C-alpha cells in the first residue's frame, strides 16, 4: 500500500510540474491585466490597450490572416485526400510529409521569403526571358501589408500537419468500402467523399484543426518574419508592449483578449460546423449523383503539388544561399559560390547550434521520462487516464501563458536562468510526447507482460527488456518530436531566458533584419537539419534495436 501511494504521488508530481506553470502563467497574465500586481502593474491595462491606435488594425489583421490560413489548410487537406490519393503524386506527398513537419516554422519562413519577394527565386527563374524584368518588379512586396505572405507561410507549414492527422484517421474509416458502395449507387467519387467520408472524418481531426487555428491566430516568430510590421499582427503588437515597463498591464490585458479571441474563434468554428452540417444533410438526400471528378482532379493535384514543391524549394533556397558569395537578380543560380561563411562565420553559427542541441536533448530526455512515468502509472491504474489537460499548452496562445510565466519568473528572480528555459521547453514538448506515446502504451498487448512475468521477469526487467524495446518505434518518434519542438521554441526561450540564450531559433529571428542573407540561410538550415536528423534517427534506431531480437526469434 505504501509503495502504491508513493508511486502514484510520483505521477501526480509529474502532472503538477506540468500544470503549475500553466496556472502560474494564467494568473501572471490575469492579475497584471487588472492592475493587481504592485510594482509590476498597478492600474488595469484594458483602457490603455483600447486607446492604442494599433489595437483594432492589429485585431483585424490577425483575424484575417488566422482564419484565411486555417481555411486554406482545411481546403488543401480535403483536396489532397479527394484528388491526389491513388495518383502517381501520392507517393511523393507521403514521402514529403515527415521532413516538412520536422522543419521549424522560422526556417521555413525564411525559405519562403527567398522564393517570393520581387527579387526572389521565383521571379529570378522567369526573368528576364519570360517576364522581361531586368530589375525586380515593384508592384508587390513581401512581406506585404495585408499579411498574405504570412498566410502563405502558415499554409505551407500547417497543411502537412493536418494532412498527417487526417491520414492517421483514414484506416478506421473504411474509405475503400464507402467509395465502392457510393460508386455502386452511381455517386461520383467527390460526392462519396463529401457525403460519406468527410462527415465521419471531420470530428476526428477537429482537435488538430483547433490547434492550427489557435496557432495561426497567435504565432509570433513567423509573424515577425513574414507578417507586416505596421500594424503588426496582434501577438507581435503585444510583444512590443510587454517589455515596456509601463505597459505590462496593457500587454497582459491584450494577452487575455487574445486567449478569449481564440476561444471565441473555437465557438465560431463550431457554429460554422453546425451550419455546414445542416446544409450538407439537406444536400446529402437530394439524390444528385454529380459529374466525374476527372475534370477537377488535375487542378487538385496541381495545387497540392505546387504547395509541397514550394516548401521543398524553400529548403533548397536555404542550401543555395548558405553557399553563395554573389547572387543578384535576375540570375537563377548564384554567380559565385563559396563555403567560406560556414568557416569564417563559425563563431556566430556554432554557439547557437550547441545551445539548441543542449536544450533539445534536455527536453527530449525529460519529456520522455515524464511521459513514460505517467503512462506506466496509468497502465498500472495508479493514476487516471487524462487526455484533455495535455492539450492546454497547444490551445492557449503562447503569448498568454508566457507573459504570465515571465512575470512570475521575474518576481521570483528565476528569469534568465537556463533551468527556467528548459522547463518551458519541456512544458511545450510534453503534450506531443504524451499524445504520441499514449496510443502505443494503451494499445500495447498486456499478454507480453504476463508472458514475461511468467518467465520470471521482475517489473523493471520486463519494462526495460520487453516493453520499451517493443515500443521503440513510438518512443523514438516521440523523442524526435520533442527535439523538434525544443529546437523551434522562440517565445519561451526569449521571454524566460531574458534574451541570454541565443539558440538557433532566437538567433534566426532576432538577427533576421540585419544579418548577411547567407548567414541567415545557414542558421535556418541548421535549425532544419537538427529535427530532420532526429526524425531520420527515429526511423533507424528502432530497426537497430529490434534487429538482433528478430534474429533471435527466427533462430
Amino acid at each position, binding site marked *: 500500500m505504501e509503495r502504491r501511494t508513493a508511486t502514484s504521488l510520483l505521477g501526480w508530481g509529474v502532472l503538477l*510540474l506540468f500544470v*503549475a*506553470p500553466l496556472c*502560474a502563467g494564467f494568473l501572471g497574465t490575469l492579475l497584471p491585466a487588472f492592475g493587481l500586481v504592485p*510594482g*509590476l502593474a498597478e492600474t488595469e491595462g484594458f483602457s490603455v490597450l483600447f486607446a492604442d*491606435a*494599433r489595437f*483594432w*488594425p492589429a485585431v483585424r489583421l490577425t483575424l484575417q490572416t488566422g482564419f484565411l490560413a486555417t481555411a486554406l489548410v482545411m481546403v488543401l487537406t480535403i483536396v489532397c485526400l479527394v484528388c491526389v490519393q491513388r495518383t502517381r503524386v501520392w507517393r511523393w506527398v507521403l514521402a514529403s510529409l515527415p521532413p516538412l513537419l520536422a522543419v521549424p516554422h522560422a526556417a521555413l519562413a525564411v525559405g519562403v521569403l527567398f522564393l517570393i519577394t*520581387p*527579387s526572389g527565386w521565383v521571379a529570378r527563374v522567369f526573368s528576364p526571358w519570360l517576364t522581361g524584368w531586368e530589375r*525586380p518588379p*515593384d508592384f508587390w*512586396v513581401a*512581406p*506585404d*501589408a495585408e499579411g498574405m505572405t504570412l498566410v502563405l507561410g502558415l499554409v505551407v507549414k500547417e497543411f502537412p500537419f493536418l494532412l498527417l492527422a487526417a491520414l492517421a484517421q483514414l484506416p478506421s474509416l473504411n474509405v475503400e468500402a464507402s467509395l465502392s458502395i457510393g460508386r455502386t449507387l452511381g455517386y461520383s467519387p467527390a460526392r462519396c467523399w463529401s457525403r460519406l467520408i468527410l462527415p465521419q472524418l471531420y470530428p476526428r481531426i477537429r482537435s488538430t484543426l483547433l490547434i492550427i487555428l489557435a496557432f495561426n491566430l497567435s504565432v509570433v516568430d513567423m509573424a515577425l518574419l513574414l507578417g507586416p*510590421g*505596421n500594424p503588426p499582427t496582434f501577438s507581435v503588437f503585444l510583444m512590443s508592449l510587454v*517589455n*515596456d*515597463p509601463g505597459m*505590462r498591464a496593457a500587454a497582459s490585458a491584450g494577452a487575455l483578449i487574445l486567449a478569449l479571441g481564440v476561444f471565441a474563434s473555437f465557438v465560431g468554428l463550431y457554429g460554422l460546423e453546425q451550419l455546414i452540417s445542416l446544409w450538407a444533410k439537406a444536400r446529402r438526400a437530394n439524390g444528385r449523383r454529380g459529374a466525374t471528378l476527372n475534370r477537377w482532379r488535375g487542378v487538385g493535384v496541381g495545387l497540392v503539388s505546387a504547395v509541397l514543391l514550394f516548401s521543398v524549394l524553400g529548403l533548397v533556397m536555404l542550401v543555395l544561399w548558405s553557399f*553563395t*558569395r554573389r547572387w*543578384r*537578380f535576375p540570375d537563377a543560380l548564384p554567380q*559565385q559560390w*563559396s563555403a567560406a561563411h560556414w568557416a569564417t*562565420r563559425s*563563431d*556566430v553559427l556554432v554557439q547557437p547550434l550547441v545551445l539548441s542541441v543542449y536544450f533539445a536533448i534536455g527536453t527530449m530526455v525529460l519529456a520522455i521520462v515524464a511521459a513514460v512515468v505517467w503512462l506506466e502509472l496509468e497502465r498500472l491504474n495508479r493514476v487516471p487516464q487524462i487526455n484533455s489537460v495535455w492539450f492546454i499548452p497547444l490551445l492557449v496562445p503562447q503569448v498568454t501563458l508566457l507573459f504570465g*510565466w515571465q512575470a*512570475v*519568473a*521575474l518576481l*521570483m*528572480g*528565476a*528569469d*534568465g*536562468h537556463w*533551468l*527556467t528555459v528548459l*522547463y518551458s521547453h519541456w512544458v511545450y514538448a510534453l503534450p506531443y510526447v504524451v499524445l504520441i506515446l499514449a496510443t502505443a502504451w494503451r494499445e500495447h498487448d498486456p499478454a507480453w507482460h504476463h508472458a514475461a512475468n511468467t518467465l520470471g521477469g521482475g517489473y523493471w526487467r520486463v519494462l526495460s527488456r520487453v516493453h520499451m524495446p517493443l515500443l521503440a518505434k513510438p518512443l523514438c518518434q516521440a523523442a524526435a518530436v520533442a527535439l523538434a519542438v525544443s529546437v523551434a521554441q522562440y517565445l519561451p526561450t526569449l521571454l524566460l531566458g*531574458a*534574451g*541570454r540564450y*541565443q539558440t538557433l531559433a*532566437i*538567433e534566426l529571428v*532576432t*538577427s533576421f*533584419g*540585419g*544579418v*548577411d*542573407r547567407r*548567414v541567415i540561410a545557414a542558421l535556418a538550415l541548421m535549425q532544419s537539419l537538427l529535427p530532420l536528423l532526429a526524425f531520420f534517427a527515429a526511423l533507424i534506431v528502432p530497426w537497430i534495436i529490434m534487429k538482433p531480437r528478430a534474429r533471435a526469434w527466427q533462430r
Partner: protein
Amino acid sequence: MRTNTRKKTAKSLLFSLLATLALSLPTAHAIEPDSDWTAVVEEARGQTVYFNAWGGSDRINSYLQWAADNLQEQYGVTLKHVKVGDIAEVVGQLEAAKQVGRNEDGNVDLMWVNGENFAAMKRNSLTWGPFADNLEHTNIVKDSPSIQFDFSVPVDGLESPWGGAQLVFIHDTAVMDEPPQSAAELLTYVVGGARFTYPAPPAFHGTTLIKQFLIELTDNPEALAKPVDAATFDEVTEPLWVYLDTLHPELRGKGKSWPNSGEATRQLLDDGEVDIALSFNPNEATAAVRSGQLPDSVRTYVFRDGTIGNTHFVTIPWNASAKAGAMVVANYLLSPEAQARKANPDYWGDPTVLDLTRLNEEDRKAFTDIDLGVWALPIGSGKVLPEPHASWAEALEQAWIERYGS
C-alpha cells in the same frame, strides 16, 4: 580583502510550485565607480559579463566574439554578448527590475546605448555611476561635444564612448549616377520613379532619417536643440508631415510595408528593389563589397549640407552583477587594439572615438594603415549635423506611428 571577493555564496535551485526558482543570496560589491583601477582589474578576473547589445549585424557579433576571446586571455573576464533587437526593450526590463526592487544580481552588466535610451536611463537612475572617467583609456579619448553630450544630454561619465556614427546613403552608380543631395531632391527623385524606402520608426535608421528630414525642412531649427515643447511641436514638425505625406505613396511598399532595419535596405539595394540604402556606418559599403554583399559599383555619400552624426556608448546598470568586469570590458573596448580593429571595414568599420594624436606611433599606424576603399564615405567629405535633443526621438516616433503606423 579576500572575503570581499565577489562570489556566489549560495546558489540553490528550488523546484517550487510555480516555476524553477533560482535564489541568489545578495553579495557584497567591493567596487565603486571610482575604485582604484588595479583593484577593479583584480576583482574582474573570473567574472562573467553579460553585454546586452544590438545583435542585428553578424559583423558586429563577430567583432564582439573576438573581443571576448581577448578579454578572456588578457583579463580572465568572460564576455557574453546578449543580442537584442532594440535596446529600448532592455531599458524597459531594467525599469521593471527597479520597480520590483531587484537592486542586486541584475541580468545586464553592460549595455550599448545612446540618445533617448541613455536619456531614459539617466532620468530614471538606471545607470550605476560615473565609471567612465575612471577607465585606464579615458585619457586617449577625443574631446568632442558629441562625446560629452549624448543627444544634448550631459554624459557625466555615466557611459563610456565606443564609436562614432553618421547617417550615410549608399547608391549603385550603375543605376543612379548622381544621387539626390537633399531631402527635397530625394522627393523629386522618388516621385520621378527612383526606388526608395526606409525602416519604419522606431527602427533606429528610420527615426534618424526623419530627424534628418526635419532638420532640413523645419522653419524653426533652433527648437530642435532644446527639449520638445508640446505647445510648438505641431508647428515645428508640420513641414515634415507634409513632406512624408507626399513621399510615402511613392515608396517601395507604397508606405504600407517597410523594411525592418537599415541593413535590410542594404540587402534591398543589392537585390535591386531600392536605389539608395541607409546606413549609420560610413564604411559599411566597403565591408559589404568585400564580403560579396554589394556590387563593386556602389558608393557612399551624404547630403550636400551634411547629415546627422553621433556617438554611441556603453553603460553599466545600477544593479549589474559584474560591475568590475563590465568596467574592464568598457576599458578594453577603448583600447587602441580594439578600436583599430573596429575601425577596419573588414571587421566592422565603425569610426573611432580615440584622439589619434594622443596615441604612440605604433598604435597610430594601426589606424592610418586601414584601407577604407573607394566604396566608403570619402574622409572629410561628410559634414556632420548634431542630433536634436534626445526627447525628439520619442516624440517624432509617436507622431509618425499615429499618422502612418496603423
